[in-house]
């Protein structure tokens, strides 16, 4: 059986001299570490975001609770001086 063309080509390719070991280019490790630092920063950011979100939710709850607790007093509050004056003027002008 005739040997496969690909096998012959691959065998020849394997015989090719190995490429020289890669020399690390100047500044590569600094770039890799900067990338690592940036990713770490990204990972730490969500904890702040969570904290802020929690604070926002807490303050919204406190606002809602204070409105509920003061609802009756808000409803029953006495009318202001302007409203009384306005009402008195209207009464006096009535026939």
């Amino acid at each position, binding site marked *: 059986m005739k040997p*496969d063309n690909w096998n012959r*080509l691959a065998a*020849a*390719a394997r015989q090719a001299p190995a490429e020289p070991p890669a020399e*690390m280019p100047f500044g590569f490790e600094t770039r*890799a570490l900067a990338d690592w630092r940036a990713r770490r920063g990204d990972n730490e950011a969500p904890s702040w975001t969570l904290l802020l979100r929690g604070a926002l939710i807490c303050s919204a709850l406190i606002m809602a609770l204070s409105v509920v607790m003061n609802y009756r007093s808000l409803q029953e509050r006495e009318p202001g001086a302007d409203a009384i004056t306005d009402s008195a003027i209207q009464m006096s002008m009535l026939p």
Partner: protein
Amino acid sequence: MQQEMAEAGLDMAACLERVRQRDEEAARSLVRELYPLVMKIVRSHLPRRIDEEDLAQTIFGKMFAHIDQYSGAVPFEHWVSRVAVNTCFNALRSERCRPELRMADLNEEEADVLENVVSTDKGPDPAEQLAARDLAHKMLEMLSPKDRLILSMLDLEERSVAEVRQLTGWNASVIKVRAFRARIKLRKQFARMMKQEEI
């Protein structure tokens, strides 16, 4: 301290522990130690339009990002190799199109290699080995990323199916079937190119 580590060979376990504690000097030593390994993998599976340094940097980024997931069950170099192979595979997958190789695309040496491979039983001359390697890579570029990765590891790097399985995480029978089909595709490609030559 750095020089001591380099001279004595890196104590990987200690270095990893320090990297986990965000020690940048240890991270620097780790990059320096693993760079040749990562570059060897990158050069074997580099997509056409991606710079090898960029890809290596992406691999180191992933390595640092997931270093807490390394359990120590396998040597760290194996774990990094797997990260590197998967990153290369993803980069290969992101290439939208695969080139159609024609005789006109080959340089003179590659065309000679092809003719020798097809017409003689002994294959290319020793002087043509570099051209043979370039031609082999060009032919692999026509395959799908998965087929390319498998055939490159099996036939060019002479890795076993078990090693490919370990590096990629793919099933052994999938690897064998894909390699078989990929070789058939390449055989057809050889025939097509020689037909073009005759025309």
